[in-house]
């Protein structure tokens, strides 16, 4: 292989280093890919095959599980529920966080430190801490006013903001800080109001960051289990809970579970790989600083 222009050192790494690197990275790749292999192959196996002893190679390939998953449980409904809840939580937290992060990044005001410290600390609190009170608040609001928050999609979206909002605010502060102040100052000199500067200069300049935050918020909401398992009912159940429906008292339809897992993973994994560049830059910008 010709030495690339970005070669790190003028000397090529010795053979021993390359061998160790190859062995380590191969083993690690194997570890990472093992469940993916199991997921893909098992999703194409007939039921007899997944019910018995594990086989590396399926005895016969079938697309049957991919058809059956939609009937065994109302997967499409769970899919739509997950989409609505994760989508709404993402939009709400990003929109609200844009304004908050702009204020923190561009203004000095009393209580700024208190606000940022609160946001940062709520981000590290366990979800279980908020689950109990929110559950009781929802139940009590439902009893006293008749507004059914418990079990509703709106209630679930609200609980998802407990983790997506602090995260979004925190990441966006970092992103807005990296947009040079001269830019929006120039815009204000040219006659933009502060919000004009936000919409015309800061937001466009921070688009990669906003995309990263949105993708991350969506991913976390899509994969959330704790709130979904307590705060949903039959009609509002999300994929996280719905996937449990493939195990019945008599049978566990492992091939269908694997097929459904693959189907629900595809949107987020595809989105992640497409936007990986922004997401990685966004996540690391905050941590590396």
């Amino acid at each position, binding site marked *: *292989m010709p030495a690339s222009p970005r*070669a*790190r*050192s*003028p000397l090529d*790494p*010795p053979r021993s*280093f390359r061998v160790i690197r190859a062995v*380590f990275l191969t083993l*690690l*790749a194997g570890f*990472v890919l*093992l*469940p993916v292999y*199991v997921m893909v192959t*098992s999703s194409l196996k007939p039921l007899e095959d997944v*019910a018995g002893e*594990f086989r590396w190679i399926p005895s016969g390939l079938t697309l049957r599980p991919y058809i059956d998953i939609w009937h065994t449980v109302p997967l499409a409904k769970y899919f739509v529920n997950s989409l609505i809840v994760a989508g*709404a939580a993402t939009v709400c937290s990003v*929109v*609200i*966080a844009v*304004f908050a992060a702009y*204020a*923190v990044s561009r203004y*000095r*005001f009393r209580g700024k430190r208190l606000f940022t410290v*609160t*946001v940062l600390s709520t981000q*590290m609190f*366990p*979800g279980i*801490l*908020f689950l*109990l009170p929110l559950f*009781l*608040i929802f139940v*009590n609001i439902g009893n006293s006013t008749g507004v059914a928050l418990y079990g509703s999609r*709106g209630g679930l*979206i*609200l609980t998802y903001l*407990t983790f997506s*909002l602090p995260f979004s605010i925190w990441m966006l502060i970092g992103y807005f800080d990296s947009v040079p102040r001269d830019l929006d*100052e120039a815009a*204000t000199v040219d006659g933009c109001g*502060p919000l004009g500067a936000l919409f015309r200069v800061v937001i466009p300049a921070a688009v990669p960051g906003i995309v990263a935050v949105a993708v991350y918020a969506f*991913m976390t909401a899509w994969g*959330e*289990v704790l709130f979904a*398992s307590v705060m949903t009912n039959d009609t509002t159940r999300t994929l996280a809970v719905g996937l449990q429906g493939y195990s019945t008292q008599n049978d566990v339809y492992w091939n269908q579970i*694997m097929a459904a*897992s*693959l189907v*629900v*993973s595809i949107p987020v*994994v595809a989105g992640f*790989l497409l936007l990986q560049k922004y997401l*990685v830059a966004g996540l690391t910008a905050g*941590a*590396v600083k």
Partner: protein
Amino acid sequence: MTSAPATLPPDTAPGRRQRGTAARVRRPGRPPRPGRLRRGALPYLLLLPALLLELLIHLVPMAMGILMSFRELTQFHIRDWSSAPWTGFDNYALAVDVNRPVGEALLGSFLTTCLFTLLSVGLCWLLGTAAAVFMQETFRGRGLLRALFLVPYALPVYAAVITWAFMFQRDNGLVNHVLHDQLGLGGAEHTFWLLGDNSFWALLTVSVWKGWPFAFLIVMAALQNIPKDLYEAAALDGAGIWQQIRRITLPSVGAVNQVLILVLFLWTFNDFNTPFVLFGKSAPEAADLISIHIYQSSFVTWNFGTGSAMSVLLLLFLLLVTAGYLLLTTRGRRDADAR
């Protein structure tokens, strides 16, 4: 969340007014200073939706959680929690009394979580750092491998963990098939992985699988900031690759490690999703992480008062550890700077 669109339009109006006053103040030839463009109401108006929501989803529930922990809150009082009898510190006494079953179980779960977190964070950090260091240099297939390594991070937790649960099945799982049938380890009798003491190792495997790519990402980003000249200079001075890694690469990761390890610690310690999908509502004793334990104490045995007391204790512990850790690491950094 309905408050968000409702409060946004008013932001615009005071914002414009604010601009007018600021322009007037600036007129006597004072140049605008960064960060002090304008003061007054505007930042608060921008913050208003976030403040309201923070209040609604964090501060009120936390205050309520603390109040709940002083009450005997069982399923009979769910409909109106404020009518539950006030019991003072009884719930706390119950939670920390290691001579009675509740306290004993909580302590066991806490110690399990500590050990689990220590091992998981350590392994995640080790794997992530090693992979990032090995992949610092370009080689064929590096981009593909990088994308592949991020897959556990991108997969929804329940989809990934449910696959691991399948692999850990006693009779039709891959793990037992490989260990017992193909490698002949541990005798012919298949092992239970999701029950009993082995469940700890099953949970640890899944946790590391899921968690290490984050360490990999962060360390990789940190490595990109190391100037290439450093390596060239070292190489010209005759330093081999291992020496370069030891003297240049690893020390440069130091500052990032502090944040990384704290974040990994908090995530792992608080993790609910992994054990819940792997084991269901009640985990085996050997893998009974604290989040699951509190969930079970509250939603399975329907004792919200005790569950709340446990949550508050957990929060206090996390705050203490975080504060102590930050104090230690920043002091260490300050000492290093002073030197």
